[in-house]
């Protein structure tokens, strides 16, 4: 039995593995959307898109949040729980800031007299909305997950020493960060 355990111990925790496969699946969804974008771009009636300046700041915010979530994970492993709580909350707030900035960024289009949806909208901007909107939904899921593990850390009732949930959430958080950077570069290059 001891031998079984040592063999099992080398393997990745199933929940972490689950997250990696889920990430693969989400990648396929965005690969589908961005390749649709590329196909569409080569066809007639394509309008060059202009990306709001605010998106640079939201990009900065989400990169920063990746740093804080990493610090949170490190603090948890060092059993520095107060700092862990602090960093998790900080990450969740940065995530929320990202979402608010994305929202405001999209609101700015109407001021620029660009229609994202409805009559007179161009597929290029609709794509931007659909893709960035779906990404925002994934970030929202991450913020909720961060909030849940944050609340769990606050509650004095449950004591949990497993780092697996924190690791799973941080992996996901890094992923939505990298995904946004990819999308941001993609939209800047593939106007």
């Amino acid at each position: 039995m001891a031998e079984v355990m040592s063999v099992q111990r080398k393997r990745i925790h199933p929940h972490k593995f689950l997250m990696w496969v889920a990430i693969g699946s989400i990648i396929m969804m965005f690969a589908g959307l961005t390749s649709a974008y590329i196909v569409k771009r080569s066809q007639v009636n394509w309008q060059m898109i202009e990306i709001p300046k605010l998106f640079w700041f939201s990009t900065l915010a989400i990169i920063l949040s990746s740093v804080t979530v990493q610090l949170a994970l490190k603090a948890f492993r060092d059993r520095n729980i107060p700092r862990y709580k602090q960093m998790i909350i900080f990450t969740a707030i940065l995530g929320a800031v990202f979402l608010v900035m994305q929202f405001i960024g999209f609101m700015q289009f109407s001021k620029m007299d660009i229609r994202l949806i409805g009559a007179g909208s161009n597929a290029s901007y609709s794509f931007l909305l659909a893709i960035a909107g779906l990404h925002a939904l994934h970030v929202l899921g991450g913020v909720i997950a961060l909030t849940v593990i944050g609340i769990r850390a606050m509650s004095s009732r449950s004591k949990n020493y497993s780092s697996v949930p924190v690791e799973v959430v941080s992996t996901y958080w890094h992923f939505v960060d990298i995904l946004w950077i990819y999308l941001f570069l993609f939209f800047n290059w593939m106007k």
Partner: protein
Amino acid sequence: MSESSLHGHGHEGVVSSHTHEAHDVHHHHHHEESFISKYVFSQDHKMIAKQFLITGMIWAVIGGLFSVLFRLQLGYPDMSFPILEDIFGKWAAGGRISNDFYYALVTMHGTILVFFVLTAGLSGTFANLLIPLQIGARDMASPMLNMLSYWFFFLASIIMFSSLFIQTGPASGGWTIYPPLSALGQATDGSKLGMDFWLVSMAMFIVSSLLGGLNYISTILNMRTKGMSMTRMPLTIWAIFFTAVLGVLSFPVLLSGAILLLFDRNLGTSFYLSEIVVKGEILPNEGGSPILFQHLFWFLGHPEVYIILMPALGMVSEVMSVNSRKPIFGYLAMVGSLFAICILAFLVWAHHMFVTGLNPFLGAFFVLLTLLIAVPSAIKVFNWLTTLWRGNLRFTPAMLFAIGFVSLFISGGLTGIFLGNSTLDLHLHDTYFVVAHFHIVMGVASFFGMFAGVYHWFPKMYGRYLNNNLAYIHFWVTMIGAYLIFWPMHYSGLAGMPRRYTDYSNWHSFNQFAGMSRFISSVAMVVFAVQLLFLFNFFYSIWKGRKVTSTNPWGANTLEWTTPVNPGHGNWPGEIPEVHRWAYDYGKDGREYISQIEPVGANESKH
């Protein structure tokens, strides 16, 4: 809620045997399960498998009944059935199925059978049942996600089912829901609210498939018992593994396509729409491309047919080896051909689009890649035949269905070679030839794999046997019936008879097929009735079937037969057994079978 209570005690069972390092705290509650936690919100993979199977059966009856209804129209276009008007009202005014109703029926028949029965009902059932039992795990990697997978499927089912009762009817633009038809509610009633229900239901269905697929993959890769190396796994598990990989990588792309379609329908965007006039109204949409949808759809759609077929390939291999009392021929070739099919599945989607104006140069590549699928398919057929060759065959119902599967796989596969050629496809596209091809090779064949699975593992699921005599009637009528229904369709298809028409009687070229069509319809009704007989057998045997007395009724090697007759939550009462050999040591060294848990003897010959 704390981590451990969230996952319930089923998960603790997994943890206690696998990853001690992850959870320092252990709760071993052995409380009595309530009705709700045992039968409804169950996290036991075996119960979830039964939930998938029975939900799938309900859908199969609905989907099958729809086909009987439209076959009634196709076989007897000039007759009136007043009872239809009594039941369906305006949809069958004057006792005849209206055009809108006909399209709704074929669309729902396709959607239900492809997704709800042969995807959820087939891989949902057998992946859940067999993965933990055959790899030696107490449950799935995440029983919680597994439960959610079923309930998302249930939610998708509820939404799709309620779409049948909408005033404007369910979606009716074909199961492939091509825009612009599916995007424009003003074009037809079937593209109104019913289409939104369809899309939302499919989104839920995709979530369900993804949650299930993620779990299957991580369970197979991470939770095998000691000694169960990948190359000792039964072929069922290999097949389910590749199925899950296909699903996890292709369903998200369908989701992308469906989301863009929802945008076009409800937010006035122009992803798929361009320069359209509907009923005199000029639409403002510009610059969209309906072909874009077809690319996104078939990038899922083609892997989807292998998602349906591959679990059947795996189960047939297992059932056939057990009942031939011989090792499966060419185990590694079987795994390799599954892998090849899995890769090729992603590279052939445009063969559904040869007539969309696809660049013929590009089409040539897709022809080549499509025809390459014949290679792994032929390897599989060869290996099944050589497994049967000089075997000590036991014609159990499961075995008959497995052999029937091979027959259907050959005859349906051969017509695939016709259709995979873009030049021939110009003539055959959208004719009954296509209908015959995919019904035999994907529809009926996968059903046969599923029946083989149900007959073989029913004793494991319910601790009782199905009635053999009813099973033999079920097999022979279905087998002969399937050929009688779909074989003649090849002829009308070659003659150019198009699919998706309600009535061919005014069409001089296809009048000659009226008698044949009537014959097909009659056989379809008989075959449908026999499926009801199977359902009777199934439900009757759950409570009244002959009891299983031995743990290993088929004399099989795999791990599920080392559990008690009615395994509890956690599958093995004691330690999970260790595996010492592959799953196919049949007829070796003068012994009929050697279970996987038996250590290799000193004088044993090599396999």
